[in-house]
Each structure stands twice: as C-alpha cells, then as structure tokens.
C-alpha cells in the first residue's frame, strides 16, 4: 500500500505537471529550450565528431578525385552565375513593372543554413532542433526548407538553437495549391501513419476536384507565413470526403524527412 510520503510526492509532481501545462505557449517554449540547453555539451561534441569524420573522409580522397570534384564545382558555379545574371534581369524587370502599376514590392528572402542537432525522441510528433537561434537572426514562424522543398517552420527560438515543427505535425497547417489545376487546400496532419513521415494530407480541396496522381503541390502564399511557390510534394492519390463535399489528397513530400541533416531557414 502507498504510504504518506508516496502521496506527498505524487501530489507534488502532479502540481508541477499542472504548472507546466498551464504555462503560455511562448513561455513553455523558452523553458523547453532552457532545459534542453543542458544537452548542449553533448550536441557540441557530436557536431565536432561529425566535422572530424567529414574531414577524415576528405583527407582519404585521392588527388584525382579532388581535381574532378573541383572541376564539377567550377562548372556548376559558372552555370549558377549565369542563371543569377538572368534572374537579376528578370527581377529588375519585375520590380519596374510592379512600380508602373503601383503594385506591392516583393521582398527578397535570405536563407540561413542550419544543422539538425536533435530529433523528436517521441514517436508521435514530427519535430527537430537546429543549431540556429536568435543570435543568428532566426524568428518564430519562419519557413524551413531543403533544396527539394518545404520541410516545416520554426516553432520556438532560443539563443543558439531553435525547435522546428515538420510538415505533418498536428500544429502545422500550410496553405497549398496544386500546380496546373489551380486547386487550393490545406496541408494537414497526416492520417496515414506516424511511420510514413514522407506522406501528408492535403485537405479541403473542392468536392469536384480533379487532382491527379503526380501533380505538384506548392505553397499558395495565403496566410502570410510561407511565401508562394515553394515545392511541397506530389499527389499520390485522392478520395472524396464528407459525402462529396470536399476532396482529400495524399501527398508524398519532396524532401526526405528521414534523412534531414541540414536545412535552410528563410528569413525576410
């Protein structure tokens, strides 16, 4: 049977849980990042080991391999420079035309590269922590992506780390559009399975929607959090919901959520 000290400790922990659960969202985020700051030495250690292993791999490469890699990178660099020049011309033309019709100027986005330092230890959420924080100019709600497409958004920001919630997490909804058809919907928490972390649901498509497997899904820009036209994924299949009032499509994400090592944070 439980004795008096057992009851005392149960009540104390229960009260502590209540206090934590009643914290406002932002305060809870700060407390979380402060507590997880205890793991910083270990994160730093693993980061250093990762870098060391990378350096070790580079030192094992032959001179021929390095020369070939250098040549490939030089070509890619030239190609990108050329594209940048073309884009700059298009950008200035776009700005001039917008000015002529007195339309709102588009803001350019800066991107910052962050390394994934921890994943959610619980199986039923999709989140991770990156090594960018307020010190690097990161703010909550900024989009997080990889070269393949959108990954999620910043949830909490600490001084040196941030928590990112990934697509498919119940807390994250993204206004999305299907390219080619003009259909718009909302990316929601997945209904398939927590294991299939590359699948998400696109809800609230119109009842007579004609989305087809293979169509590309991008951000629609509505809501103001995510800029328009960031790739999200491709439609896998769709089904009619609520007696034909709406359609739900399953979308395979462009970014490989299981292999995220580095991500980009978009800051306006």
């Amino acid at each position, binding site marked *: *049977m*439980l004795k008096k*000290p*057992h009851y005392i*400790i*149960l009540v*104390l*922990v*229960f009260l*502590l*849980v209540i*206090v*934590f*659960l009643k*914290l406002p969202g932002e305060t*809870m985020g700060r*407390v*979380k*990042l402060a*507590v*997880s700051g*205890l*793991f910083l030495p*270990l*994160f730093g250690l*693993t980061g250093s080991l990762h870098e060391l292993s990378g350096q070790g791999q580079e030192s094992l490469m032959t001179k021929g391999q390095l020369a070939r890699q250098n040549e490939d990178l030089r070509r890619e660099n030239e190609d990108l420079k050329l594209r940048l020049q073309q884009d700059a011309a298009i950008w200035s033309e776009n700005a001039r035309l917008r000015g002529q019709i007195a339309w709102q100027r588009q803001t350019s986005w800066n991107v910052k590269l962050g390394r994934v*330092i*921890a*994943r*959610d*230890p*619980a*199986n*039923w*959420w*999709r*989140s991770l*922590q990156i090594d960018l924080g307020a010190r690097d100019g990161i703010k909550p709600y900024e989009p997080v992506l990889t070269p393949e497409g959108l990954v999620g958004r910043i*949830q909490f920001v600490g001084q040196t780390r941030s*928590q990112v*919630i990934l697509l*498919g*997490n*119940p*807390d994250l909804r993204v206004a999305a559009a299907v390219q080619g058809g003009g259909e718009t919907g909302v990316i929601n*928490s*997945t*209904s*398939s*399975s*927590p*294991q*299939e972390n590359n699948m998400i649901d696109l809800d609230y498509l119109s009842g007579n929607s004609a989305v087809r497997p293979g169509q590309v899904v991008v951000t629609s820009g509505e809501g103001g959090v995510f800029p328009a036209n960031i790739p999200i994924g491709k439609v896998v299949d769709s089904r009619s919901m609520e007696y034909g009032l709406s359609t739900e499509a399953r979308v395979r994400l462009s970014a490989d959520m*299981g292999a995220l090592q580095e991500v980009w944070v978009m800051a306006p």
Partner: protein
Amino acid sequence: MNWLHSILILAVAYAAVFFEAWFDGFRNVLGTQIDFLPALMVYAGLTHGLFTIGLAAVCGGLWFDSLSANPLGVSMLPLLLIGLAAQQGREWVASDHFPARFCMGAAASALQPLLVLFILLNIGQPPILGWKSLWQWVLMTLGGGLFTPVCFALFTRFHKALDYQPVSQTSFRPDREIKRGRV
C-alpha cells in the same frame, strides 16, 4: 542515502534522453524510437528510495519533453507512477532473474506511452496516431523489456567500480599457523 547512486541514475537518464534524440538507427531500421526511461524507472523503483524515484521521474520526464514536441511535463507523472509501482512490487518480484526484469521492463514500456497518450488526449493535444502506432508500441515494449536487464547489469558494474567493497575476512590466523620442519 547514497547520493552517488541517485546521481548515477540521473546521469544515465540524461544520456538515455540524449541518445534517443540523437541516434537515428532504430528510427530508420525499425521505424520507431525505443524509450529507455521506463526501464530506468523500473530499476530505480526496485532498488532505490522514494526520493531517487521522484528525482529520476521529474528530471527524466522534463529532459525528454524538452527535446520533444510533447507539452512540457506530460512524461513526468507516468514515469513516477511506473517507479512507484515497481517499488510496491519490490517485495514479491524476483528481481534478480532475467525473466522478471524483462517482464517488468516490458510492462513499464508498454504502460508509459499509454499513460502519456491518456494525458495528451485529455489536454486536447492529440498526437499523430495510426494503425502502425501499434507496431511502434510493440517494439517499444520489447525494446524496453530488453533494456531493463541491461540497465541492471550496467548499474551493477557502476557500483562495483565506484562503491567501497566489503573487506573480506582472511582465513589466516597466526595462532593456528602450522609450523613445519623440526622443532
């Protein structure tokens, strides 16, 4: 109270939570992450006092939730209940045997996610669940069960290395020494 034992349990909880957040192997191969904290709470419950159980539950739960998207604190109460249940069963569980340790660890690892889920559903924060969550739950149960005997073995080694060993009485007595040779 031996503070070293409590600190050791906290250190293992700290390392376990970090490992769960950092290591992707189980996630990539099995599709689930094994939680080591319930097994640790079984160990704490079977071998330590109330203070250590409470401390391990509060710190372990807090650390786990800080790295997760769980609302802060939801893991604490389930871990404490597991520790207290193990402590209550201390008298009648043959905790020296592998099957007993495995069964207790498996039961704790099965119960802990259910209790956390119960709290999450009651505070209106339903997580991502599907039919394959059952598969994850089974693997977590087995993984936690297997880790419990490992946990006991690990702490036995720690204690051997760090505790004062009892001085064994030598059987040599000078008054009973047999003098050999001619007197």
